[in-house]
């Protein structure tokens, strides 16, 4: 199958409020390929977490998915089978049809029942500050088994064995199964959550800022646990973080998000070398380098735009050093300017003539080295 695992098209998530509609995610297009670690970066408030919540269908009122589709193309057969060969799929009237599982389906259109079937088994989620989402009065093992029994046909004993297995993958001793959350450090709790997300061998694991507010040593252990998971079980990982250095260590492809839209996507290697979008250029130039030359950095000029009314045209134009007249009127589309490299900027793509121009002099000169 050459289809991506996840294909988000024109996703819009709005939030009602007395002051009007907050367009938090406003036209996101993304493709996540199989067996890759896909990174999503951007400043806080740009809508990263909301995209993730939309994929998991966790948007709660006053938020709602205004439009768009999130196509998910699972690898159908193998995943419904337990390693012992028996099919362990709970079947019922309102579950997903084999046809849907084979040809993919739109997550936005699913009802609660099929969603329950999808969650954890196909797509699992490591929420932000997830170490605080463990139940303080349940042992870790009980919580892991709970999740497994809800979303699969595992028996209790199988679930317990599986729990011990995944704990090992993330580098935790089996005794953690019998621990209460308060007995573990923050990093261990975080890894226990990642292990829980792995229990049913999902095809997609979404981790939303799993290392924020942790020490560097612990952060490293967690990132290595995620890498391990990807390498050992071929899981696709979607990794959200505002920390570009973390992305550089971990991800294969990286998308930069700004003001509810994706502005640039490419492999992490190319993006770090040659960011094209002026926003990405600023973002990469502002990463602190340990041991490098110490220069005074200025933050990106101006304030992040208001989610109630995005600037017309390109949303970055009020802060962009290269802003032209058309940037203020026409919204640049996300266009593939070279193979695998998508960017939404008028500097590289002429909307009228559809010409791609990668050698824009202005940007070359303005590029922050």
């Amino acid at each position: 199958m050459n289809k991506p695992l996840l294909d988000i098209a024109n996703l819009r998530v709005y939030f009602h409020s007395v002051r009007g509609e907050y367009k938090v995610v406003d036209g996101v297009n993304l493709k996540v390929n199989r067996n890759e670690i896909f990174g999503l970066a951007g400043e806080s408030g740009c809508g990263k977490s909301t995209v993730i919540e939309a994929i998991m269908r966790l948007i709660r009122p006053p938020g709602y998915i205004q439009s768009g589709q999130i196509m998910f193309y699972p690898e159908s057969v193998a995943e419904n089978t337990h390693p012992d060969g028996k099919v362990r799929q709970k079947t019922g009237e309102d579950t997903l049809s084999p046809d849907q599982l084979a040809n993919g389906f739109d997550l936005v259109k699913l009802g609660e029942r099929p969603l329950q079937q999808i969650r954890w088994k196909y797509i699992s989620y490591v929420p932000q500050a997830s170490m605080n989402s463990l139940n303080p009065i349940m042992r870790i093992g009980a919580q892991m088994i709970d999740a497994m029994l809800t979303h699969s046909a595992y028996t209790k004993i199988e679930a317990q064995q599986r729990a011990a297995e995944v704990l090992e993958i993330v580098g935790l001793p089996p005794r953690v199964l019998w621990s209460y959350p308060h007995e573990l450090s923050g990093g261990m709790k975080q890894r226990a959550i990642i292990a829980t997300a792995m229990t049913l061998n999902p095809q997609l694991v979404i981790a939303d800022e799993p290392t924020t507010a942790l020490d560097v040593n612990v952060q490293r252990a967690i990132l290595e646990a995620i890498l391990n998971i990807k390498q050992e079980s071929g899981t696709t990982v979607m990794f959200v973080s505002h920390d570009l250095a973390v992305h550089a260590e971990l991800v294969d492809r990286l998308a930069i998000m700004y003001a509810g839209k994706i502005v640039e996507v490419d492999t992490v290697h190319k993006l770090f070398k040659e960011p094209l979008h002026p926003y990405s250029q600023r973002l990469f130039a502002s990463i602190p380098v340990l041991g490098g030359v110490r220069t005074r950095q200025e933050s990106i000029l101006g304030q992040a735009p208001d989610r109630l009314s995005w600037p017309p045209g390109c949303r970055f134009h009020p802060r962009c050093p290269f802003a032209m007249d058309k940037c203020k009127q026409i919204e640049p589309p996300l266009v593939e300017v070279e193979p695998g490299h998508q960017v939404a900027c008028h500097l590289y793509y002429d909307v009228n003539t559809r010409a791609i121009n990668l050698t824009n002099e202005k940007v070359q000169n303005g590029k922050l080295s």
Partner: protein
Amino acid sequence: MANSRNHFLDVQGVSTHFHRRQRGQPPVIAVDDVSFSLPSDQATLLTIVGESGSGKTTLTRNLLGLTPPTNGNVVYQGKDIYKMSSEEWVAYRREVQPVFQDPYATYNPFYRIDRVLEVPIRKFKLAKSKDEARARMEEALQAVDLRPSDVLGRYPHQLSGGERQRIMLARIYLIRPKLIIADEPLSMIDASLRTVFLNILLDLRDNHGISCIHITHNLATAYYLGGQMMIMCRGRVIERGDMDTIVTKPTHPYTQLLIESVPSPDPDQRWQRKKQEAKNLTEIGELKTDVNACVFTGRCPHVMPVCRTQRPQFIPINPAQESACFLYDKAINPEITNAAPARQASAD
């Protein structure tokens, strides 16, 4: 003490122990014999780096006079801060100002932001008239990149974390202390605002001569500030000296691990390549707080028998760096040539 005249803050062997509730359990040693001093003739920036549980916050509280240390003294301009008269104490509270970790918890939600700035003006008699007070407040807010009209008259819940932390800095700017003690001031602020905050700290040092003790676990932001650095591990300072020297040539195995674990913003230099050697370091080993041993023995790759029976003292590595590690003690480890860097500076 004679030499404490030259230091405006002198921390002498401060230890803080917390007793446990169960009888017979040894106390938790949060801060263990920490000594350092800040010179009085120039504004200095001292960064204290350590992982969580290393005693950074307890040390801050010792310095601010909030938690008396079990042993040792905090001497400010020749006087022990825990033995000051009330006037001296007021002066100390004026001259040493804190910035706390959580900007969401430092404000009283019932009062407008104005009050945060008005109270010190009133209390320390910084202005003669109401108009002057207002002018000083506006000046202070502008100094931290805030528009007075955006902020004054608002309640704390209407402001973002970054704005709240900057108001703490505006307050400090107003008071013009001699020393700022900032405990993880950046942990709750957005990445894009961090540089704004750090630039303000640099400006306060360079243009107003305000020293700063900056406590953090984030080496990358610490490096941006420069100045002096101390690395803490389990309550002890294990390496200290000039920031640039330590970051480029860390000597203590713990510092090496710490610096090595900072993600580098270069996809071509990933950890996997060095994974084998680093594997036992990232495993979370139990760290012992044995008074007569090095605190890092549980995780140290170079551990020697002496590390478990003696407490290492500071050994000068070069004029700008000291390390509390037996590896650099010529009597114990004669073949050591000074310091192998854990990671080449990845700037190029």
